């Protein structure tokens, strides 16, 4: 009786979708070729519909989604479900089975069923910068926010709202404190330059450059418990490869670490060894240790240094360090080498610590600090307790894997990769399984499954948040026209 009811309901659902499953079909053991590749993946239970295109030869196509007792089918080479249908499907069970059928010369072929396993929820919002893979031009940059539970995307801030002709503005390094948006920041460079901050919901624009620091703040790390932000300060240059597939090389001529005290509106030095490039700070969740990367490099300062840096670029290898910090007294301990990547002829960037403080995700390549242009850059994970690390082979590709972030529950990572075409970064998600492995990565779903192929901008710096940004783009645009507030310089405190 129960089965009969289920079948009746399924038939009704099918009728409502207007698709009819063919009576007979030949089975094939191969998975269908679909784009994006969503075959046998683990997905967040609150994710938007996983639309895809079928890339098999055929005159007609049918995709049947089954979840528990709920069954839906979609006709055509694009398998796209309405959000309400997708939600109903997700409510049907923990696994969505997908069967693709193709009609060729009057015969239906059923491909091997693949599954999408529903798992932990993901932070509903991810913010990123949309940027062309250009070298000198940056006319249309936006920092946008995508609702991962739907296809809605909204602009947080776009440089087209203020820049004018030669008065161009580069925007970068958006960053949030503890996955919330009431404390966030991004930088504007050149025209109307400064660091835009939202502190406890209030806007502030500061100029983090002082006479005692080499630049304004660059890569940020907001302290999880106290009102500090650690920044790297960088003098960065870029050069172009004539033949290499990595295309562009970005290198620092100098870099240090500073700490910005939000309340005191002052900066102090964390690390500024002139023979060492320090970069990419990242706090542990308790805020008592700062991880960062640093490379030893000795070369005379002067006009030749920039050229020298690029000639030596393959020899510049960044190691992973950590430095104890007492947030109450704002005092630092001695730096400690965590991973000696240089001894392995490798270079580490972007350490990011999981919310439980037990794992550290980083990117490692052959050399340098700007792995977004290094095809050999892969993601690695380190167990902080025992110091062991391993490459995320289940996640990595033979192309760039670089900027990565943890979700607030520590169950998901998002990372940018150039695996699809080698030039445009796309965002991929992967689930941290209970055994410590990561699930097969997949790109964030789009309403149009061809989106990643057609879109001619890169996704850059994905950062999860649990809530939307409340400050409107116009508010940012209006505030950014104000003069940046200068900061004072304080000397460093050491234990």
């Amino acid at each position: 009786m129960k089965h009969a009811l289920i079948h009746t309901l399924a038939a009704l659902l099918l009728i409502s979708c207007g698709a009819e499953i063919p009576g007979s079909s030949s089975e094939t053991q191969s998975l269908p070729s679909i784009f994006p590749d969503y075959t046998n993946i683990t997905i967040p239970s609150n994710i938007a519909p996983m639309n895809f295109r079928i890339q098999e030869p055929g005159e007609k196509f049918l995709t049947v989604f089954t979840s528990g007792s709920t069954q839906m089918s979609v006709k055509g080479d694009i398998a796209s479900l309405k959000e309400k249908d997708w939600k109903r499907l997700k409510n049907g069970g923990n696994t969505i089975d997908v069967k693709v059928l193709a009609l060729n010369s009057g015969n239906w072929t059923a491909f091997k069923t693949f599954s999408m396993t529903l798992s932990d929820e993901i932070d509903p919002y991810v913010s990123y910068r949309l940027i062309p893979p250009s070298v000198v031009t940056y006319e249309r940059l936006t920092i946008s926010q995508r609702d991962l539970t739907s296809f809605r995307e909204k602009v947080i801030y776009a440089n087209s709202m203020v820049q004018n002709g030669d008065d161009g503005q580069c925007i970068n390094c958006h960053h949030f404190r503890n996955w919330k948006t009431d404390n966030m920041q991004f930088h504007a460079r050149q025209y109307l330059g400064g660091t835009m901050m939202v502190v406890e919901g209030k806007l502030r624009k500061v100029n983090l450059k002082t006479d005692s620091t080499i630049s304004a703040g660059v890569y940020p790390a907001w302290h999880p418990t106290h009102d500090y932000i650690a920044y790297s300060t960088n003098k960065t240059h870029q050069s172009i490869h004539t033949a290499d597939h990595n295309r562009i090389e970005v290198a620092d001529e100098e870099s240090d670490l500073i700490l910005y005290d939000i309340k005191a509106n002052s900066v102090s030095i964390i690390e500024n060894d002139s023979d060492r490039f320090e970069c990419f700070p990242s706090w542990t969740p308790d805020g008592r240790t700062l991880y960062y990367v640093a490379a030893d490099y000795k070369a005379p300062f002067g006009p030749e240094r920039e050229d020298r840096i690029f000639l030596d670029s393959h020899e510049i290898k960044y190691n992973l360090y950590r430095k104890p910090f007492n947030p109450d007294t704002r005092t630092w301990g001695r730096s400690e080498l965590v991973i000696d990547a240089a001894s392995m002829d490798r270079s580490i960037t972007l350490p990011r610590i999981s919310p439980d403080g037990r794992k550290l995700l980083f990117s490692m390549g052959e050399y340098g600090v700007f792995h977004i242009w290094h095809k050999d850059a892969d993601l690695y994970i380190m167990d902080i307790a025992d110091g062991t690390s391993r490459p995320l082979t289940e996640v990595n590709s033979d192309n760039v894997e670089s900027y990565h972030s943890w979700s607030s529950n520590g169950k998901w990572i998002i990372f940018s990769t150039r695996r699809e075409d080698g030039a445009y970064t796309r965002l991929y998600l992967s689930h941290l399984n209970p055994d410590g492995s990561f699930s097969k990565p997949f790109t964030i779903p789009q309403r149009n499954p061809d989106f990643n192929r057609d879109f001619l901008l890169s996704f850059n710096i994905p950062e999860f948040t649990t809530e939307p940004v409340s400050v409107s783009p116009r508010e940012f645009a209006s505030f950014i026209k104000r003069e940046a507030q200068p900061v004072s310089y304080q000397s460093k405190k050491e234990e």
Partner: protein
Amino acid sequence: MNASGSFKKSRISSPGRILSDTLLPFALLLFMIFLFRYTLLRIESNSLFVYDRDYLLNSFSTPGGFIGWTGQFLTQFLHYPWIGAAIWIALVALTVRLVRMAYPGLCGTFWAVSYIPVVIQSVYCLGIGYGLFLMKSPGWFFIPSIGTLLILCTVVICQRIAIFPVRWFIIILSASVGYVLAGIWGPVSALTAALSCCKSTGRDYTGLVIALTGSIGLPVLLHTLYTTFRTDEIFTVGLPVISYESQLPVRLPCLLLILYMAVAPFIRISDSHPGTRKRDIIQMAVIVISAAIIIIFSYHDRNFATENAMSAALDRYEWKEVTDILEKAEKSSARSDERAYSRRTKSIGGRSGINDIESIVDRYSSRFYEPTRIMVLYKDIALFCLGTEAESMFSFRDGARKQKRRYDIPMAIQAGKQLYFYWGLPNYCHRWCIEESVEYGWSYSTLKYAAMSAISMEECDLARKYLEILANTLYYREWAESQLALIQDREAVSAAVPYNTVIPLMCYDDRLSNDQAIIEPFIMNHFTSHRPAIATPQFDRAAMLWALRTQDIQLFWLTFLNYLGSNNPKAIPRHYQEAAILYSNLERNSGIQSLPFDRQVRENYDAFVSYEKSHPVRSISESAYPYSKRFGKTFWFFYYFIRGQETF
């Protein structure tokens, strides 16, 4: 005039008007096709229209995006300039028709004034010249035409609606939906319609107030929904944008069009006074003046046209056509050169003061034909692809005539992608495709070169990305599909045009570099200073071409030896012989006497030396022309007379 304000049909349908309405579009079409064919082609290749839903939806991200989308749709037909030009002329003909319908008081008797919008639009489209490289608005070529039609349609519709609330609704619709779709053209159409109705069909002051409030208030209100433009652009968004210090060159025509339609309802030209004959003469005068304005303000420059023609031929891999175009341009200048020389000689006359002579030479220099750097570089590419550069690269005039333009446009934007691609630097080609797309939007041309550079670098997925976009276009689909069929097979790629020329040049070792947006010296340095340990014969051929351009003797010998080693030629090409003979004589080096030089080359060189003795060079610029008549197709002429050329 009848009671409703419209003019009698007999007047409207005067034979003169019918004749001019019939002939003028054809005249304009011929004018565009014969003089602006390649400019129109360039405009098309710098635009993009993709048959894709997202492409359409993306146009709504900014007010006026839809008008740009429509403009892009129409611009694609310039691929065949006569189709695109005919469409444009059909639009302006419709404009004339609507102007007469909307403003009978102005055009009823003096119908020729209805041609004024045509004149303004013609000047906008045909006077752009090099500015086309800096146009940032998609579909800019058609924007004023579509905007004008929108205004006129709104005026005509509102005039024909007697029920005021319905008219007000249309006015509000124009100001709001019009703003979303067409930018400022929407509110302007609402305002113009209200003004027109106020004047012609009764004192509808309410409509005017609604239009005024809507035209100002709605854009202010609606702009908060967008993040794609600045607040101070609320009332200019939708107008064409150029990357220049002033927007006047592209916006003045639009403002004049708007002004024309705003004041037209208030101008009433009476038909009672001037007699028919006098009226016809005045109309004829208006037409003649209009034609004169179009001719005067259109951008005519032979080098610009030649550059565009050469670029189009290069993009079609028609190497021979590239050189033919340049040859034709040179030949067509022979007479004017002779005239300039004769007048200059007369002018110099018996003057002996060097300063006097130099100033005369300077004054006349612009009258002599000289190619631009881009023409020279396009020609070198074509000859290299034909494999005849060593025999004929100096058979063409060389030079660096400054482009006639008011705008500062680096060569990188005009020709960067082409130069880098054909000289085997696809990474730089791709880089400039991206930079160009960031500044001016993606185009057929940038997508095509980005795809070709990816194919050369064996980046199949990236190439597929660009090609699949081009496969969704009307006129580039076939090319894109042919490339998609090619990319998986490296052997087929290596054998196919143009990769069979480009890939052998990519034998060099990678290095980090930066061209600082100055292309020519960068490519020159690449070939002359960064030879790989194992260079292909093609690389050494290219290195020879650039080494000859440097006029550096030591570099020539070094490159020449490499060339001999890798190419092992049966006969030494003419220009190399010329350079070798000249350089060995300059260095008093008799060591090369054993090389198999042609007798003809030796005799020519002897003739050159004896001519030099009988016609001593007083100044390079003064003697260049007479020397060019005898030795203009030799390396010796290039070496002595083409010095210190400016690139950009």
